[in-house]
């Protein structure tokens, strides 16, 4: 599918596409290293959203007047773009949601409540984001399902030794494709094959993987894939659930209201066709268009090129951190960049993650400190918080260097 040969990214040219990168913070160049949390937006996305509001804004799927048809066409075109971007052939398999969290909740509230009962098993991993943990805890409280956890190794990969036992009798494997804390890349296709052999359905949290590497939902052989636009260079407020059409057809509606119905009487309602059956109410129209523009932008670069860039920059940063700080800095996750995305979590022995991020902010460097919405993983690491730097297409070696220099200042500042 993706035949474009991997070329190196002209990062300087990319940077020029992102207006926010021109600003300064505390008199310093903005060094944005928090794309795993939310990515910055290129001009193309801002322009597409601006254009729809200025020229073709109206509610979708309602009016027959010209601009309503234009808005509907733009909204549905975005759906097709998003579908293609992840290798889906049928755009009816993309349900627009608010974000990945809502996409996973949609599966938990609709598919799982229709298909799982007391004692049924859901398998998660210790790498999961709360978005792929709490909906299942809620289901457990309500339904008495059992949750089993795939443990992790000392370098925060999945420990698959006991996987067959964990999957024995499981109805669902819900797994991240890439950790948002350690960057660990998970072999989704391999896990999905084993889950299927055990008779389980497969949900993939694609929040970090979809923006960073080529993703093909059929190559993964998944049933559900959730992801957010805002980490994908698109606007916040929209995300997507991809699910197999036959599953969506069989699933009951999630929320009720306008848009999701074919007919309503005083006696009841008939649901709309998929995917609209799951899109109750007026959707985030301009945001969908923005998400479509974002995937266009990434596709023009080529996701193989994006992955090669993330990998090279991550390796460079890992080496630079090790050279400069040695054992004083603990870096979590797999040792090399081959098995990890552009996410690096770390901790100084003696300095709290929040103090580090406060001091580096003074240098214009934006990094995240905290538990990264992955408290089960933090418990495994045995720390309350880490500092995390993450890379996007617009980051380069100068940004990694700026991080290292800023961290050196933090270390000096808190020196005992």
């Amino acid at each position, binding site marked *: 599918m993706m035949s474009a040969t991997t070329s190196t990214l002209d990062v300087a040219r990319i940077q020029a596409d992102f207006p926010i990168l021109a600003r300064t913070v505390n008199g310093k160049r903005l060094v944005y290293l928090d794309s795993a949390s939310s990515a910055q937006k290129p001009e193309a996305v801002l322009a597409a959203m601006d254009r729809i509001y200025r020229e073709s804004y109206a509610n979708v799927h309602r009016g027959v007047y010209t601009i309503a048809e234009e808005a509907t066409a733009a909204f549905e075109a975005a759906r097709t773009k998003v579908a293609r971007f992840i290798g889906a052939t049928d755009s009816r398999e993309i349900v627009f949601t608010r974000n990945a969290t809502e996409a996973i909740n949609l599966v938990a509230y609709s598919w799982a409540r229709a298909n799982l009962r007391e004692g049924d098993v859901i398998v998660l991993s210790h790498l999961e984001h709360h978005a792929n943990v709490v909906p299942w805890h809620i289901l457990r409280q309500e339904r008495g399902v059992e949750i089993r956890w795939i443990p992790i190794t000392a370098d925060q990969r999945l420990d698959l030794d006991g996987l067959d036992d964990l999957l024995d009798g499981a109805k669902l494997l819900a797994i991240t494709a890439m950790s948002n804390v350690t960057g660990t890349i998970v072999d989704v296709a391999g896990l999905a094959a084993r889950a299927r052999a055990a008779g389980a359905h497969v949900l993939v949290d694609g929040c970090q993987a979809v923006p960073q590497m080529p993703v093909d939902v059929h190559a993964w052989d998944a049933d559900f894939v959730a992801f957010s636009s805002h980490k994908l260079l698109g606007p916040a407020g929209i995300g997507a659930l991809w699910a197999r059409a036959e599953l969506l057809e069989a699933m009951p509606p999630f929320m009720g209201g306008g848009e999701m119905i074919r007919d309503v009487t005083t006696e009841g309602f008939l649901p709309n066709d998929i995917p609209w059956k799951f899109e109750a109410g007026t959707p985030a129209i301009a945001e969908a268009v923005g998400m479509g523009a974002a995937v266009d932008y990434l596709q023009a670069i080529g996701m193989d090129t994006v992955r090669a860039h993330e990998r090279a920059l991550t390796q460079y940063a890992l080496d630079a951190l090790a050279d400069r700080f040695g054992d004083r800095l603990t870096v979590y996750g797999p040792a090399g960049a081959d098995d990890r995305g552009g996410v690096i979590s770390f901790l100084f022995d003696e300095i709290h993650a929040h103090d580090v991020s406060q001091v580096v902010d003074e240098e214009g460097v934006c990094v995240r400190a905290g538990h990264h919405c992955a408290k089960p993983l933090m418990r495994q690491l045995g720390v*309350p918080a880490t500092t995390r730097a993450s890379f996007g297409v617009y980051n380069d070696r100068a940004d990694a260097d700026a991080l290292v220099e800023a961290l050196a200042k933090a270390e000096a*500042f808190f020196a005992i």
Partner: protein
Amino acid sequence: MSGLQDLYREIILDHYRAPRNRGELPVPPAHLVEGFNPLCGDEVVLYLEVEDGVVTDVKTAGQGCSISQASTSMMSAAVKGKPVDDARALIRAFKALMSIHESKLEGAEETDLSADLEGVRLGDLEALQGVVKFPVRIKCATLAWNVLQQGLDETAAESEA
């Protein structure tokens, strides 16, 4: 690093590096209270001994960022040996100090805040005032004081029961 120097005054770093009153007290007679800051994972554990309306002893445990831990240390030093009423006045004064920034933003009357501050000597604690310029860190600074308040309320309820 002028803003930073405001946040991380030398006295704050001193309390962070050499926290006062670290340790534990036997429970009971001491009272144990814990507090968490879910944002950063700061944790404050307080052992509080109250006798005849006086905070006779305080020990602290827990972990977290320099602001939360320095504030805990300063709080323990400020209330140890003080009458409960003075400790409560300090809590009010400290919270007023931390909310000045917010109330200024909202344009609220400042008079009620200065009433809380009046007649209370904050001493070293005033060094924490720099925190208000960094609104997300205010929770780090107030955590220890919320825990203290909870502890005083609980011991009061116990002695009434």
